[in-house]
């Protein structure tokens, strides 16, 4: 028997696919003749088409941001805490669009799709993507849905990078830019973690230089390790301590026992790695982490972030979390300082949360309140 879906959720949702036939020239110089994007929408587009909100997903996200795919679904979409009727992104007011980015592995055109010229899966030959490619492909989706201008483009982490790039690439098509737990560029430490994760995948004997599908295999253990590395950086030391401490799952430290000891945290991380590697694509993981690494908001603006933001026409809301060491508060402050120097409208809040980078996905009263207040202002403009 299934329990009824919570009344503050968007309920049952069905993904749709947009087939976009216009060729897209990518930052790397290559062309995609056509591509498909899988997306979900929640709420209703108003007659003026002025209430659309784009949600940009982070590294391992997809189009399923809120609601449930079936009555028996155990878990709702990845941002269900913040998208729904009466929630911060209120689907009674907004028409919310979330898509699986190009290069993804949840249905949009990506390394698992068939390359038209060869009739085989793209695999590692799929073009390298930049954040701007996602933004341009999202603009095509907006055209397809009849959305001329977003009320807001919203994203956390890698999603925040897309939101900022939107503000610079399409200044007339964004009224508000919401940037949560993000950065204008990654630090060397961040790139180091991503490269370690990529190497874990590539050194798996089943990787076959990215052609694992042709070999009818899959670098499952490499991808699992990559996810474990990532997962450690999304949590805070404090939360790991609280959740697992040094608790043992099996074995004992008693003298004279040679059996292996297993800590709870080991088992937890392995479980996270295992479940992730069952549903995610290794080439997509490599592609998305590279897009993260390459992103540098101000590079083409003489490395002057304020100069870059002067192009923007929208208002900004920026939030960060005090225990987030993957995208620390300093990175958000840099965004805010550049926006102030560019004389842009911006509000910024630092949220007290023990949960590290993951905090942007989790319930938190102050985060929820400020986010809700900001979105409510947008709705009444």
């Amino acid at each position, binding site marked *: 028997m299934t329990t009824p879906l919570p009344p503050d959720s968007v309920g049952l949702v069905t993904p749709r696919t947009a087939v976009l036939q216009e060729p897209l020239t990518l930052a790397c110089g290559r062309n995609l003749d056509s591509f498909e994007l899988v997306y979900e929408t929640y709420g209703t587009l108003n007659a003026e088409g002025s209430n659309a909100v784009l949600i940009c997903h982070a590294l391992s996200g997809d189009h399923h941001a809120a609601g449930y795919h079936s009555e028996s679904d155990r878990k709702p979409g990845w941002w269900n805490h913040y998208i729904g009727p009466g929630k911060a992104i209120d689907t009674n007011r907004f028409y919310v669009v979330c898509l699986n980015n190009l290069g993804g592995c949840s249905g949009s055109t990506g390394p698992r799709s068939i390359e038209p010229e060869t009739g085989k899966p793209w695999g590692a030959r799929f073009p390298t993507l930049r954040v701007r490619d996602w933004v341009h492909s999202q603009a095509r989706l907006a055209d397809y849905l009849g959305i001329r201008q977003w009320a807001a483009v919203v994203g956390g982490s890698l999603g925040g990078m897309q939101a900022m790039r939107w503000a610079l690439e399409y200044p007339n098509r964004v009224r508000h830019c919401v940037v949560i737990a993000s950065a204008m560029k990654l630090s060397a430490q961040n790139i180091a973690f991503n490269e370690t994760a990529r190497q874990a995948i590539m050194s798996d004997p089943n990787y076959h230089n990215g052609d694992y599908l042709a070999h009818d295999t899959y670098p499952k253990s490499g991808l699992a390790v990559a996810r474990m590395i990532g997962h450690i950086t999304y949590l805070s030391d404090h939360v790991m301590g609280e959740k697992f401490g040094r608790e043992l799952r099996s074995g004992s430290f008693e003298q004279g026992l040679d059996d292996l000891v297993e800590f709870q945290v080991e088992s937890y991380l392995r479980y996270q790695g295992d479940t992730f590697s069952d549903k995610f694509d290794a080439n997509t993981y490599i592609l998305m982490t590279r897009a993260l690494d390459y992103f540098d908001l101000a590079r083409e603006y003489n490395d002057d972030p304020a100069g870059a933001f002067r192009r923007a026409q929208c208002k900004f809301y920026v939030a960060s979390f005090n225990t987030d060491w993957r995208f620390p508060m300093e990175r958000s402050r840099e965004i805010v300082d550049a926006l102030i120097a560019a004389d842009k409208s911006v509000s910024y809040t630092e949220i007290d949360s023990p949960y590290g980078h993951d905090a942007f996905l989790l319930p938190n009263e*102050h985060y929820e309140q400020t986010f809700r207040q900001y979105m409510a202002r947008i709705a009444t403009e």
Partner: protein
Amino acid sequence: MRIDFNHLQQWIGEGSRVLDLGCGDGTLLKYLTDSKQVKGYGLEIDPEQIEACIGRGVNVINQNLDRGLGNFADKSFDTVLMTQALQTMYFPHKVLDEMLRVGKECIITFPNFGHYKARFHLAFRGRMPVSDLLPYEWYNTPNIHFCTFKDFEVLCHEKHINVLNRQVVNERTSQTLGSFNPNLFGETAIYHLSK
């Protein structure tokens, strides 16, 4: 509307760029935006006040003033404001320096610790002043650096700060007495400064 807000707005130009330090719930910035079309930001650290600012549509930045204003460029604001917060700073003199660096002009309001009621408390009761103006006990007060109007004038003099305007406003004490002897009968000072 707080009484000091009412007075200080006369020194703020139409459409000017304003930074409000310790902006609270954003009432003043909202008022100045509506009445003078100012642009700018408030700095605040209290989560509930930040929520209130955002709810009002006031640009608020989560920033601790004791960390300085190093992220703001020299003379990048027409006016830097600080109302009733100077006495809560760890280093009020450094905050004042920063305000005058970032702003072409500053407006600062603070309570007078030389007010006769405060003096009476200390002189005759031998206790730190607690009143309707200063409702905290010494151990739990956020007000850690009190000064009198005279003290503040001395600091301005030492720092070669120009006092463009000064005004004393009273809500509970007679305005006449406050004008007659501000340091004894004035409750709140409003200073308009430049450097």
